[in-house]
């Protein structure tokens, strides 16, 4: 139950994009096609969860014992940068065709502040490993929900007559604002 609450809370109540302001660049810039957004969600989920597990362990079992928590930022970013690349390289190695299919399917690879932000948040919130992992997973889902919904809206906007000055980022932000308004309705559910 506790885990379900963590997930509901991170998907709806304090959505990573719409309430916590993380991962907005890909949200604004990439979510043009629903299919791609679904793909992004899958990839981001794996990367975020993996990164959270590893950074959590490094933090708890290396940095804390050594008393160098302050090196958190620099350690995490290095781990994450290397990890993201490592996943790519492994995927390429294990099945080149699959890797190629992914390349066509996902026009972008994941590096954004959401990954680091979540890793930092997870250790900041004093959660244990499982909680952190569930928290990361919930937030990845929340990211996906926002991204996919938004991609749907974008696809529709593309067929509408949005005034020229508003096209692109401005309308994306305004829509995000209205989604955020709607998401406020979930306050207090958990």
């Amino acid at each position, binding site marked *: 139950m506790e885990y379900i609450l963590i997930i509901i809370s991170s998907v709806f109540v304090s959505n990573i994009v*719409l*309430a*916590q*302001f*993380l*991962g*907005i*660049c890909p949200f*604004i*810039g990439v979510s043009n096609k629903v299919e791609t957004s679904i793909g992004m969600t899958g990839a981001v989920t794996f990367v975020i969860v993996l990164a959270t597990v590893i950074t959590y362990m490094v933090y708890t079992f290396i940095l804390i014992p050594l008393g160098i928590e*302050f*090196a*958190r*930022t*620099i350690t*995490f*970013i*290095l781990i994450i*940068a*290397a990890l993201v690349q490592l996943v790519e390289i492994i995927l390429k190695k294990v099945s080149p065709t699959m890797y190629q299919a992914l390349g066509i399917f996902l026009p972008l690879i994941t*590096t*954004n*502040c959401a990954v*680091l*932000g979540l890793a*930092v*948040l997870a250790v*900041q919130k004093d959660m244990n490993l499982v909680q952190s992992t569930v928290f990361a997973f919930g937030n990845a889902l929340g990211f996906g929900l926002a991204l996919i919904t938004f991609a749907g809206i974008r696809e529709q906007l593309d067929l509408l007559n949005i005034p020229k*000055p*508003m096209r692109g*980022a*401005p*309308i*994306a*932000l*305004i829509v*995000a*604002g*209205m989604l*955020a*308004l709607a998401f*406020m309705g979930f306050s207090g559910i958990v």
Partner: protein
Amino acid sequence: MNQWKNFTKGFLKDNPILVLILGTCPTLGTTTSGINGLSMGLATTFVLLGSNVFISLLKNFIPDKVRIPAFIVVIASFVTVVELVMKAYLPDLFNTLGLFIPLIVVNCIVLGRAEAFASKNNVFSSAVDGLGMGLGFAMALFLLGTIREILGAGSVLGHKFISGDGMLVFILAPGAFIALGYMIMLANQMKKKYIKD
């Protein structure tokens, strides 16, 4: 390149937030008031300036293939310095900006300037570039923060000019998105009007 142009390009022409739309997360997350926005902007400026200078110094020493991890280390170090110093001497501010200080590391604009500019230009140009871009960033943050503060709290730089509250929504997430949306629209219009190149 003309250094003045180099310095001012970040103000409007290549403004990181309003034109390039990068680093949106800290922009939205820290602009609940003008002061907060400005502080975040200045912290970022410091990192930008420092990393730009450093990287341009080191550019010939770093082999191409590891330039990204090397840049990350440099940037992350500056960020940590900011983090520690703020914690020690500006604890309240550090609390409000919170998570977004470590996130300067991933602010695309910092790494981006390292990649696109500092790794190719001399130290002075890079410093000017970092300062200009950073100030452009800070300016936009300050502007957005002020707008949100005026509309949301009815105050300017903490001084209330109406009794009671403003439109709370502008302090909260939805208002942040909406305000930034219109700001970007206006900046684009202005850019079209005033800057031709």
